[in-house]
């Protein structure tokens, strides 16, 4: 026996019984909670739903992807080239590692699905040819004109998004075909085929589908559920169910400066979190912190019977 247990008076104990009772107590508690409160179930948001419910927003997202101005187009590493978003003391891990899961939203969300759709809808091929044959400056003019029209004066009628007439080239019809594709549910399957690790037969990764919905499509619903970062969303679940409250320290960092004000808030908060964990793991070696148990006399309550018996002796 290496331990110091046998320096003390011993008493009968039944560890197997204790663990079994522990298991039964927890089982009963969990079953009661499960049957009374159930668990949070919320259907996922599909691109198909989004296209049907918000056709004008869908078209705007597609135009931003075509223009290269969408959030994901301008993300930078690890998704595409560009300036890294976050750094800590001038060091940016994402910048150093570069593009690791490449995505080109213009191709992945606009050109590729149109090419796929063109296989069954031959009227799309001439649109793509006209677009590809145009001078880059002309393409850019069409795209800018149409995005401006969509942003300022667009309405949805008879299953189509309409705007004022203008110099848009083939763009309105291309985007309209993408909306039809989106509303059918086939768009989501098509864009997902390009997610890393997928092929034509197997799809295990839904990365590209998620990245299409990131930004306003998911944020609108998150805001209603109070799940935005500014609403303490990190610590919450939907419908007031308990969330990961054990991340309380990490979640609260996002609400205090400089974490709440810096562009590198995520990197700063996570680095602080790692430091906090190192302190936690090596707490017994940290002078001051390792003396707290002696100063706060909780141990006297825990071992009160032992101390009382010792006093009586």
């Amino acid at each position, binding site marked *: 026996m290496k331990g110091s247990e046998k320096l003390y008076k011993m008493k009968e104990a039944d560890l197997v019984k204790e663990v079994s009772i522990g298991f039964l107590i927890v089982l009963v508690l969990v079953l009661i909670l499960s049957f009374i409160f159930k668990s949070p179930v919320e259907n996922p948001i599909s691109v198909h739903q989004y296209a049907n419910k918000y056709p004008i927003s869908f078209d705007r997202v597609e135009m931003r992807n075509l223009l290269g101005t969408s959030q994901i187009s301008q993300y930078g590493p690890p998704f595409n080239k560009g300036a890294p978003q976050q750094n800590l003391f001038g060091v940016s891990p994402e910048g150093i590692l570069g593009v690791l899961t490449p995505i080109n939203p213009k191709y992945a969300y606009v050109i590729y699905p149109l090419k796929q759709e063109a296989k069954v809808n031959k009227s799309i091929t001439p649109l793509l040819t006209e677009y590809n044959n145009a001078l880059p400056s002309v393409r850019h003019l069409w795209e800018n004109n149409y995005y401006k029209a969509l942003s300022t004066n667009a309405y949805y009628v008879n299953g189509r998004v309409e705007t004022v007439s203008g110099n848009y080239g083939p763009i309105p019809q291309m985007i309209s075909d993408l909306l039809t594709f989106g509303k059918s549910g086939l768009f989501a399957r098509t864009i997902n085929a390009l997610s890393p690790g997928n092929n034509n037969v197997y799809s295990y990764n839904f990365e590209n589908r998620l990245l299409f*919905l990131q930004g306003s499509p998911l944020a609108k619903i998150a805001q209603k559920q109070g799940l935005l970062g500014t609403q303490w969303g990190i610590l919450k679940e939907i419908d007031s169910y308990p969330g990961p409250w054990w991340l309380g320290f990490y979640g609260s960092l996002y609400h205090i400066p400089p974490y709440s004000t810096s562009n590198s808030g995520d990197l700063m908060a996570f680095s602080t979190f790692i430091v906090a964990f190192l302190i936690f793991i090596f*707490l*017994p070696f940290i002078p001051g912190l390792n003396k707290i148990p002696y100063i706060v006399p909780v141990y006297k309550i825990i071992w009160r019977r032992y101390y009382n018996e010792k006093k009586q002796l």
Partner: protein
Amino acid sequence: MNLTTKIKKEISENIDFDQMLPDKLPVYVSSFVYMFGSLTLGALIILIISGVIMVWQGPIWYETSSVGLIFRSIHFWGAQVFFFFMILHFLSNFFIAGWREGRILTWITGALIFVVSIIEAFSGFLIGGGFYAQWNQVQAKDVFSALGATPIFNVLNNIQMLGFHIIILPLVIVILLVLHLFFIRYKGVVPPIDNERK
């Protein structure tokens, strides 16, 4: 040197069955706080059993069928209860300075279980199959991208997160737990803080 002989000798000299599974404990082990560890272990067992059933039947089953939803709820509340008792276990061991007299590895393995459990629970939130999972995935990608962790932990990749949640991280937790339990029994239950010795 015969490694087998050396290990056999070390084990036979230092570890005995009575020490690993004792039927007698020191008198100071008499407080409900000693139950927190067993309760945490109980919750872990419930999580493993419900998790195995869930992965066996698949996400559509536990998202839509009435029986599946029960197991989903058990898994959800099991995680809440697991963290509740684990934090109580940690707090009580902190306030009795449970690392004293050569029990540093017991503390470190316990702390590591807590850290890995946080990642485990987080990966579970990402594969729930609902809006909450989607939202957490796109939000968390900013953190993990900023860290440069995408090549090893891509939160947008469901199959990778599923692998982490059902195999890799539980395996790490169970290995750490075996070590944690071994160290507890190897060194014995930490003795009371002695006024003369502090």
